[in-house]
């Protein structure tokens, strides 16, 4: 008797979970689907001008066209490379600087004002100057993306260090450990979750930096094509490119979250 009851509760549980999944997909997907259908019907009924508003069918066709022509691959290659370079540079500099600021409070106090200013300033406003220095194209885009991405990386690394249990620092001191050991064995592992959250935020801002940077200073990539198609008044391809950006954003966010979750297991090895 006990067995059957256990099994039946497990089943009920599973069923509940499956039902929730179905609800989530149907309800969330439903809104998007209804929106798309309404849009399509409005176009088909001639209620809106297809040239101005495009239509879901056209947008999907546009994406397919970009895939077939290889444009998508080229764009993803360019934007992806810019993203990777910017994000890597921002991570290395941002995390190191943040750790340094967390350990040395005078460095922190001296640099913090600039970090917050950078955070709240529209870096892209300086794009004419940036282009003048780095030239039109990838270098400028990478620079803009670095400036955007670096802020959460710095801030989180700093806060991570700030929040390290002082007792643990004392343990290292008491056992005669040096600053390097302190960093490797206590500060880094203890601040790792916070740093990884910064990495996720930094990734998001690097994407913004690349896309918006390309919008203004690019010579290729997804953001650049959005701008190009917009100036050609090619609504369909603008929508198609934006759809690609959205998918890329979702994928990257998914990767960042997976990375953040997986990273809690690495700490032992640090």
């Amino acid at each position, binding site marked *: 008797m006990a067995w059957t009851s256990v099994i039946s509760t497990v089943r009920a549980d599973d069923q509940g979970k499956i039902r929730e999944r179905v609800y989530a997909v149907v309800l969330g997907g439903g*809104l998007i689907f209804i929106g798309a259908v309404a849009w399509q019907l409005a176009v088909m009924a001639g209620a809106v001008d297809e040239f101005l508003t495009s239509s879901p069918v056209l947008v999907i066709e546009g994406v397919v066209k970009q895939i077939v022509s290889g444009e998508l691959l080229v764009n993803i290659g360019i934007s992806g490379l810019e993203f990777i370079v910017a994000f890597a540079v921002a991570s290395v500099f941002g995390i190191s600087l943040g750790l340094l600021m967390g350990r040395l409070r005078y460095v922190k106090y001296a*640099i913090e004002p600039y970090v917050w*200013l950078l955070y*709240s*300033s*529209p870096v892209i406003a300086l794009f004419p*100057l940036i282009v003048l220095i780095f030239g039109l194209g990838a270098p400028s885009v990478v620079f803009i993306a670095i400036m955007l991405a670096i802020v959460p990386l710095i801030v989180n690394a700093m806060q991570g260090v700030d929040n390290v249990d002082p007792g643990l620092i004392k343990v290292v001191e008491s056992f005669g450990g040096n600053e390097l050991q302190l960093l490797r064995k206590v500060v880094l592992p203890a601040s790792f979750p916070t740093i990884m959250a910064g990495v996720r935020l930094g990734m998001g801002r690097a994407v913004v930096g690349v896309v918006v940077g390309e919008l203004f200073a690019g010579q290729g990539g997804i*953001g650049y094509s959005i701008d190009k198609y917009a100036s050609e008044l090619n609504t369909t391809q*603008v929508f198609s490119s934006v759809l690609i950006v959205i998918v890329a954003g*979702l994928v990257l966010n998914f990767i960042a979250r997976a990375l953040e979750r997986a990273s809690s297991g690495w700490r032992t090895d640090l």
Partner: protein
Amino acid sequence: MRTPKRKDAGAPLTTSRAGSQESAVKVLTGCISIVVVLVAWQVSASSGLVDASYTSSPLEIVKAAAELVTSGELAQNLPTTLFEFSIGYALAVVIGVPLGMLMGWRLRVRQVFEPLLYALYVTPSLALFPIFVLVWGIGTTSKIAIVFVDVLATVVINAMAGVQETDARTLRMAHAFGAGQMAQFWKIIAPSAMPTTVAGLRLGVGRGVITVIVAELYGGVVGLGVMISAYGSSFNVPPLIVLALLAGLFGLIVGSLLRRIERSVFRWE
């Protein structure tokens, strides 16, 4: 007379004293750092060590700022930017806070809107701006729309998180006391979601300010971003920096003001 209690009793006093001294050190170090950078910048520019046509200099920037103010140019453009920002922001708050709270409270509502908002949240909303321009032109409407979209995601997600963080025990307690759904929402869920919600509003200010300016930069008729674009294309660097700094400082000041208000209002946190 357990040990931990006695320890706590003495602690806050010393820390708060050390704290006020520490914040003095912080402000002082920050100021010194800013002065040093400004002086180094000025010296390197006026000594010709770096090309001042690229980097400008603090004095030139101050001069440019004064000019922008006295010529009335700022007064001509600033209101438009503020207007676009305020309307877009207000719309996002008016729609976003209730929507977010509802999403946090009611699973089904959340399931309906989450995918869409999540997509909006993880993608650079400025990528949508060219579409808005195609639809509404380069005037005020497209700016309001982009600020709205950009701020909305932040506001909704924070309001939702705030509701979801409500202490389940408190809710059970209220339920045990016979509080109905509505009473639970207004007396427990909404107040306890406040701090996170307001933090979302603060984050929204920073994002919205940047967004409105970048949008104007992309295409506009009047506004700070349009000025920036004009000075940028003629490579007139000092006013360019003034305007970028102005936007940055605006975001910074409003942000920290809101943070301070948050701290004093939600002291229980």
